[in-house]
């Protein structure tokens, strides 16, 4: 019954999405004004129904209802409850249902909270949101039904991919999807404003909090995903330029550019067409990412079953929505009047450069991600594009961008003097020179990119605090704090990346019992191995004692063997201290009874994710600050 109720809720939600679109489209025509008030409640009910369907699917997974095909294929009664719960979205159908649920929730949130947009633009926005929803409801109902029954029901489920059996599964996909799909709001806003020819500062101020919210979630989701891959895969790396990672990075790059251009539009009424374009591109990248991950043409723990019709379906949706939005943009861009002017040396100028660099990096990542697919489709040649390409092509641009990021906030809006800016940058520049000298003296053999990364991180950290200089800190608006912390976060993260790639020490050894090995500042003694049993796995657990300056730490890395489905995974043992992490993986024994151990000492690697969290926190402060200011400005009318 639960499965049927879920399916019914899904169909009803799809029907309401159709209604929402139709009401909006007809209401916007001449004489249709009477229909407009109906759109908001329809959006809310649609969101509620989608949530109900998703909640019912989770319930099915918690109860391990094996008469449902999806549950039978991915659930197992021996799994701990957290993985039965989160396992609901650890598969193709469930994750698409989560996607659609968040899409309709975003629409519902807009209809509930958005009070600044003019009525007609809001209705057009909700109609656009419903149009996106329709396509993805159809995808679920016709090509990925999560509630399909299985007859006869098997005696036991097949279980969840062991790599996914980690608390990260409860956090990473939902936050990432909230960001990913949250960008649909920006897309719908852009479409709505193009339809009603309403692109201007008021539109930008209304859109900004939504973009910020999605961007915060995306930042959190990517940061969490990176840390998860780092500790779960046991490879000691935190970013692999895997196409699926790129699929989340591309919307982030576009959203970051959008976040900055929307500020130019809101504050200075510039970059109108460009901002609208970016809003379309950002969510388009989310859809491209969905296509890459969910169509089955790729390649990782993220892509589940392979079914060619699904790929074709998503590709069709993708073409329809991106093509439609771009066509609308092409038709209407002539009516978008260009806003006010500004000098090249100005805050706007710096933001334009930031946007161009972000777009260029986006292009590089997109080309590198799609190239293997294109090459195989066109010439049948099999190839892969990996870190050497991405680091070489995107790395230098990213460093230039970070340098511009240091200067931007120190410039005035509209026009500024190059000399004055240089003066404001004097202290950070001095720091950069000092850091360069110190690094060259202390670590002469350091690579070019890490070297530049480290010195830039120092300079940018100083420059990003500079906007607070001579301000009354207690009266500094919250969104300035947000900007400072987010930019500082980038510097912190950059420092972590550079330090990890420059100073990591790695040892691969075959260790006998009682042997010691050195890595970085640690001496590690191999004390033995013993078998351990978990709820749905068995493991070999090694015991190691790491000593640094006389202080001992116990490390217990495991090599786990899951029995349903039969897979082996490595559980790294990670010891975190203030100046880095010790990361240990246990491998296999050889004929002589030696165990392979992989030991890493990674100085300041934790800064990478700390920086990511700071960026998200900065976004949050900025969001709160903006919303509060808008409320105060519009106080009476908003609450009237």
């Amino acid at each position, binding site marked *: 019954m639960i499965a049927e109720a879920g399916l019914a809720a899904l169909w009803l939600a799809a029907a309401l999405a159709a209604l929402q679109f139709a009401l909006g489209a007809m209401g916007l025509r001449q004489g249709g004004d009477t229909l407009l008030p109906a759109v908001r409640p329809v959006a809310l009910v649609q969101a509620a129904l989608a949530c109900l369907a998703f909640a019912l699917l989770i319930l099915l997974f918690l109860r391990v209802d094996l008469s449902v095909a999806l549950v039978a294929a991915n659930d197992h009664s021996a799994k701990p409850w957290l993985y039965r719960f989160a396992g609901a979205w650890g598969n193709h159908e469930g994750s698409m249902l989560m996607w659609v649920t968040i899409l309709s929730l975003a629409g519902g949130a807009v209809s509930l909270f958005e009070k600044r947009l003019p009525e007609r633009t809001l209705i057009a926005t909700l109609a656009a949101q419903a149009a996106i929803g329709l396509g993805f409801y159809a995808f679920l109902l016709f090509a990925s039904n999560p509630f399909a029954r299985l007859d006869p029901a098997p005696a036991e489920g097949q279980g969840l991919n062991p790599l996914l059996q980690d608390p990260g599964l409860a956090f990473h996909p939902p936050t990432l999807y909230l960001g990913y799909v949250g960008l649909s709001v920006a897309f719908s806003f852009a479409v709505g404003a193009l339809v009603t020819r309403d692109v201007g500062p008021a539109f930008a101020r209304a859109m900004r909090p939504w973009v910020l919210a999605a961007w915060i979630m995306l930042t959190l989701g990517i940061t969490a995903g990176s840390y998860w891959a780092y500790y779960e895969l046991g490879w000691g790396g935190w970013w692999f330029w895997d196409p699926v990672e790129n699929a989340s990075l591309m919307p982030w790059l576009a959203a970051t550019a959008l976040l900055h251009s929307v500020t130019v539009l809101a504050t200075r009424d510039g970059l109108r067409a460009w901002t609208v374009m970016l809003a379309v591109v950002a969510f388009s990248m989310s859809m491209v990412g969905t296509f890459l991950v969910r169509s089955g043409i790729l390649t990782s723990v993220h*892509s589940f079953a392979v079914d060619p019709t699904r790929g074709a379906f998503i590709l069709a949706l993708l073409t329809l929505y991106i093509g439609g939005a771009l066509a609308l943009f092409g038709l209407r861009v002539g009516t978008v009047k260009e806003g006010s002017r500004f000098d090249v040396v100005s805050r706007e100028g710096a933001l334009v450069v930031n946007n161009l660099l972000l777009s260029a990096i986006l292009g590089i990542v997109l080309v590198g991600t799609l190239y293997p697919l294109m090459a195989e489709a066109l010439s049948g040649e099999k190839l892969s594009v990996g870190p050497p390409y991405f680091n070489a*092509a995107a790395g230098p641009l990213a460093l230039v961008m970070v340098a511009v990021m240091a200067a931007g906030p120190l410039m005035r809006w509209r026009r500024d003097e190059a000399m004055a800016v240089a003066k404001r940058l004097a202290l950070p520049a001095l720091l950069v020179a000092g850091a360069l000298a110190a690094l060259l003296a202390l670590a002469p053999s350091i690579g070019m990119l890490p070297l530049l990364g480290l010195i830039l991180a120092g300079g940018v950290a100083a420059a990003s605090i500079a906007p607070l200089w001579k301000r009354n800190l207690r009266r500094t608006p919250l969104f300035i704090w947000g900007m400072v912390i987010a930019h500082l976060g980038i510097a912190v993260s950059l420092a972590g990346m550079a330090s990890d790639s420059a100073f990591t020490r790695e040892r691969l050894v075959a260790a006998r019992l009682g042997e010691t090995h050195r890595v970085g500042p640690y001496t590690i003694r191999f004390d033995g191995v013993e078998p351990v049993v978990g709820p749905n796995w068995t493991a070999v657990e090694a015991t190691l004692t790491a000593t640094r300056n006389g202080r001992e730490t116990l490390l217990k890395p495991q090599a786990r063997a899951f029995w349903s489905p039969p897979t082996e995974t490595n559980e790294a043992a990670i010891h975190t201290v203030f100046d880095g992490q010790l990361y240990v993986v246990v491998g296999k024994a050889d*004929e002589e009874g030696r165990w392979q151990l992989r030991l890493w000492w990674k100085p300041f690697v934790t800064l990478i994710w700390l920086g990511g969290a700071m960026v998200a926190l900065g976004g949050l402060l900025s969001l709160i600050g903006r919303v509060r200011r808008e409320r105060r400005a519009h106080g009476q009318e908003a609450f009237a």
Partner: protein
Amino acid sequence: MKAKHQRLSLALIALVAIIGAGLLAMSALKDQAAYFYTPSDAARDHVRPGVAVRLGGMVQKGSIRREADGVTIRFVVTDGAEAVPVRFKGIVPDLFKEDSGVVAEGRFEPGGGFVADNILAKHDERYMPPQMAGEMHRSESLKK
């Protein structure tokens, strides 16, 4: 007039940036894309040593040897017709065994041997990436 100039110069800068990024991407792609070879492909095409490629085939029976350091292994990848000796330092995946499919990521040495940075072995079908499955299928189909 000024507005027009400004928009023109912005468009120009954007164009230059995009073309520059495109060129950068293309040149990097040319050098850095890793192609997939079977031992026969590699023998025919004379792959340049030092270029990152993927080598796929079967692990020849009785060819896996562990060196004295306990962490370096040597084995031979074959497709029935040609064979390539491979050296790998690291922890091999659990499903890596003789007479079974393997894809090695790495580069050829001047002497004709192959140094692998990473080894991908036949994996549970359900979680096998499609490209890998395709390559593995090609490797497995060589087994007769």
